[in-house]
């Protein structure tokens, strides 16, 4: 059983590896699909309604049906890591998550799964973040992590990590949509899309924090979400990744979405006034060909829907 899954996964990983060799050519790959809108790398939208933000951003990226086909199993991976309420901006905005779920369902997804390996007790985080309730109402299967579903995956391109435990459902999904929330983080300075992928990891994750910049990129060489939607509706500017103080939360009413996870993070860094190239993990990701961090190399389309 496990063998088949793993083999299947390795195929995917291999393909991903092949894709990775087309370093920096992601725009061209997208362009080859012949969709005019897809020549854009990043969609940056401002609006006070989270659902409108999501819809607009995904439309700008070519529409949800470009990514989610009928019958697909979709995994939406928000950040549900902490026992915090949405206003504290430590967990992904539940309205953002719910709208993604609704779009996937509309596109014919057979199943939209949501889970996260939390830092505080899972039941409390699922409840307090409101993601369990609001996303379930939108039609998602919100489930807790099963220890049994972690499987060891080798990381052929890993520098520090040669293998790690990944969550099977995230690996096996037809479509993986990463929905991080933009937050301050003392170690990596900011936590965005690449770091949000830690939520599908098993094992002693604390160990990843040591040589973090290299290890987080190692992880992201074997798992690549089809879309990354960065929730910057409320941004935690300091004392992240948990926050707690509402004075540290800045209302930005923004979403940054794209296919290139590194590009999304690079733009996300600018929300904090940082230069992408100054962030270790982004520099590392770029140098290893995971994506683009030079914003002037990217085609960014902005939509300000503010009335």
């Amino acid at each position: 059983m496990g063998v088949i899954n793993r083999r299947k996964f390795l195929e995917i990983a291999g393909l991903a590896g092949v894709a990775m060799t087309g370093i920096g050519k992601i725009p061209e790959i997208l362009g080859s699909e012949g969709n005019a809108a897809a020549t854009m790398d990043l969609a940056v939208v401002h609006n006070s309604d989270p659902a409108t933000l999501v819809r607009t951003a995904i439309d700008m990226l070519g529409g949800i049906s470009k990514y989610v086909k009928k019958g697909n199993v979709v995994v939406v991976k928000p950040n549900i890591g902490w026992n915090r309420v949405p206003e504290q901006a430590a967990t992904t905005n539940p309205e953002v998550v719910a709208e993604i779920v609704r779009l996937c369902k509309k596109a014919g997804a057979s199943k939209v799964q949501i889970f996260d390996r939390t830092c505080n007790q899972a039941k409390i985080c699922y409840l307090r973040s409101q993601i369990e309730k609001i996303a379930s109402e939108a039609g998602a299967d919100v489930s807790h992590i099963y220890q049994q579903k972690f499987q060891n995956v080798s990381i052929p391109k890993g520098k520090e990590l040669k293998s790690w435990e990944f969550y099977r459902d995230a690996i096996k999904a037809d479509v993986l949509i990463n929905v991080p929330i933009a937050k301050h983080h003392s170690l990596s300075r900011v936590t965005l899309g690449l770091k949000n992928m830690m939520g599908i990891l098993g094992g002693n994750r604390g160990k990843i924090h040591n040589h973090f910049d290299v290890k987080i990129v190692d992880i992201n060489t074997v798992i690549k979400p089809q879309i990354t939607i960065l929730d910057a509706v409320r941004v935690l500017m300091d004392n992240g990744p948990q926050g707690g103080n509402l004075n540290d939360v800045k209302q930005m009413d923004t979403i940054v979405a794209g296919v290139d996870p590194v590009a999304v993070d690079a733009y996300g860094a600018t929300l904090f006034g940082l230069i992408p190239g100054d962030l270790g993990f982004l520099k590392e990701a770029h140098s290893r060909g995971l994506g683009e961090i030079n914003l002037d190399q990217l085609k960014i389309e902005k939509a300000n829907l503010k009335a």
Partner: protein
Amino acid sequence: MLTARRISQVLFLLLFLYLFFQAAFPYETLIPSDLFLRSSPLIAIATFLTTKRFIGTLVIAIIVLVLAIALGRYFCGWICPLGTTVDFGDWLSKNFRNKKSNPSRKLRTWKFSILIVVLVAALFSVQLVWFFDPIVLMTRTITTAIYPVFAFLTESTLNILLSVGIFQEPLFNLYDFLRETVLPIEPLYFQQGTLFAVILIGILLFGLVARRFWCRYLCPLGALFGFFSSFRLTRGITVAGDKCIDCGKCQRECKMDAINDDFRSHSRIECIECMSCITVCPTDAISYNLRFKFAPDRFDVSRRRFVYSSLGSILTLGLIKTGFHSVIKAGHVVRPAGALPESDFLDRCVRCQECVKICSSTGGCLQPAMLESGWEGIWSPIVNARHGYCEYNCNLCGEVCPTGAIHPLELEVKKKMRMGTAYFDKSRCIPWYRGEDCLVCEEHCPLPDKAIKFDIREARGPDGTTRIVKFPYVDEILCIGCGICATKCPVEGPGGIFLTNAMEQRWEENGMF
């Protein structure tokens, strides 16, 4: 009547289990999960004696006790979850029981000796009720042994089925359902669970000697009810002497060996109103009624026994009170937030593990102590910060404490209540000894302004190269001692940061009820 009693037993056991499951996050329940503990008159009286003050929440226990004047030991026969468990154990072991063994009725006074020991000790501020109270015993054993084992075996079975590889979908659905209802989200581990299980199994094994052995000879709560029912004002079990044919079936049937050899009278101290005798009587000579009758039973607890029990108790409590841990700074035990000052805390704590149970559904820091705070603190809740942490947004342990040993704090008060202080072990902390970044502790620190800060400095690695490293340190002013830093520290074995009770705050009572 017999059927009614059995239904009552099953219902009360189910209620007990239901309340047990209720003791979990988010704890939105109409019935407090410590209802049974609050109903135990033994806990009420012993805690009244240790604290020398009336505890408002134990009113219900006095009502339960006073009812014995009308209804005898109804609690033992109809309600007590341990009594029901013992009945079940006796039923299982009925074919293995030594029919010839006939323990002397004199042994029945043991339970009064135990009661005297408990109450005399309580008078001298040593809480011993926790070893013997049947409600405590059940709560503790279910929390630390039965429930974790049930969860472990259920999950193991599911895992075996899942590894077969077919029916994965329905199996995971079942798994989800069980986790929503009875299984914990994360596996449970408690120290001493085995010991508590062995104690319960021992009580059940006594069933091989005699039915309801515990209730007959040992239970001090039963003794307390027996004492009150000896003064009862109603008839209860009544025998129509002219109908009785001296067959002795009732005496053989009686679980409590309460029926005297004339088959026409019984010990009202022992009878638990189980109604079995009524059912077996071939001539319907036995009936039950609550008409007025006052004829106090003679007590066969001699003055000598009373004195010896009291002396034994005083000697024991002397030893406990002069234990080493009473004088050294406890140093290494961290108590839950809201715990009273140590001696008041130990006066009140009945070691029921309700707090441990509810904590296991959130941060999971509480464990029953072994000898970490001496004999006096045995089985009391202590924080093991390497295993779990005190959830910042949680105040549930105080909510479920039946005796107020942990004061129920408003959440905003609890967030500021200081359990202790964390310290770095710089010989184990990754940035300090290896010169590499980590900061997992800082990431998890739940305080809005972070009690773990860091300096950014240059460090020289073992290979001679230098790099910029974030060196964490604890802000002693801000730290509340929740211990999550110690729990999440990725260093294997002893962590790079540990929790102590330094600068702990205790809830000071202000002399009210």
